[in-house]
């Protein structure tokens, strides 16, 4: 079930797909996200109820485990902060 991710581009594509899927966002809108795009607290769709689904979906698709203590507002703050966290977890 666990997929190997060695590719930055694939990782970012997966993150965009998960954001679109879980938050129900338009794909074109998510495609325009960059490192500075604010997420948690800035997107009305991204509330605390959506965090659990987002993290679990990222775990499943990237083959990683995210511990609760690793999750905080800073990590979820922007597309860039979330991408950095996932790079450290998923890229070998």
């Amino acid at each position: 079930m666990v997929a190997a991710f060695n590719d930055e581009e694939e990782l970012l594509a997966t993150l965009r797909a998960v954001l679109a899927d879980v938050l129900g966002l338009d794909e074109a809108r998510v495609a325009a996200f960059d490192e500075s795009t604010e997420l948690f607290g800035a997107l009305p769709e991204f509330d605390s109820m959506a965090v659990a689904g987002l993290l679990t979906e990222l775990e499943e698709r990237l083959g990683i485990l995210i511990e609760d203590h690793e999750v905080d507002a800073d990590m979820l703050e922007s597309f860039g902060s979330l991408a950095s966290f996932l790079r450290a977890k998923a890229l070998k």
Partner: protein
Amino acid sequence: MNQSGGLSYDRYTVDGSSEWMMRIGPAEAPPIVIVPPLFEEMNRTRALVAAMMRALATRGFGCWLPDLPGTGESDRALEDVVWEDWRAAVTEAADHAAAASGRAPLVAAIRGGCLIDDAAEGAGHWRFAPVLGASLVRDMERSGLAGTSWAGYPASPSLKAEVEAAVPEPAVRLRTVRLASDKADADGKIAGPSLWRRSEPGHSPALAEAAAEDLAAWAKTCAVS
């Protein structure tokens, strides 16, 4: 007698307790038994499952969706339900559909349903986006971050432990389908959103139609026709 292919409700029995099942399509048509996702994912995918059932009914199938004990309209309390009740429900629901139609059903499971669908032999199995029980449990535990542990589902410690240990088991004539966005191995991929993740239930008619098309083709391959 319902020849029109409309919606109706049947009763089936698990361990002496009567449960509901929803049917779309004629009772005597080639049968497909749907094993639904578990817990909150069942609610999030209700529109998807109903749309798949309607799409399959227009293709000439009779679709059966059991309420698992302790869920939906069941008279039983979820606290008292054990894993074996859900597995027995799948067996009984498939037997009920087989008796009504005179044919072994195709067993079609979604998400957590893929952890119990092997309890019915059927004419074949179709799995959509199967999930490990451990992953379901992590998601339910994590929903506690938003204030309510297990998203308000009072599962017993025994049931939680069984879910956590559960993995999709081997099944005969099995086809596994995943979303195109899912990198894991599958026999087929379908484009669409992971509706089971959305905290606000959503719907995707295109995904329902694509899933029904794939499922109908597999049912025919398994000689459910």
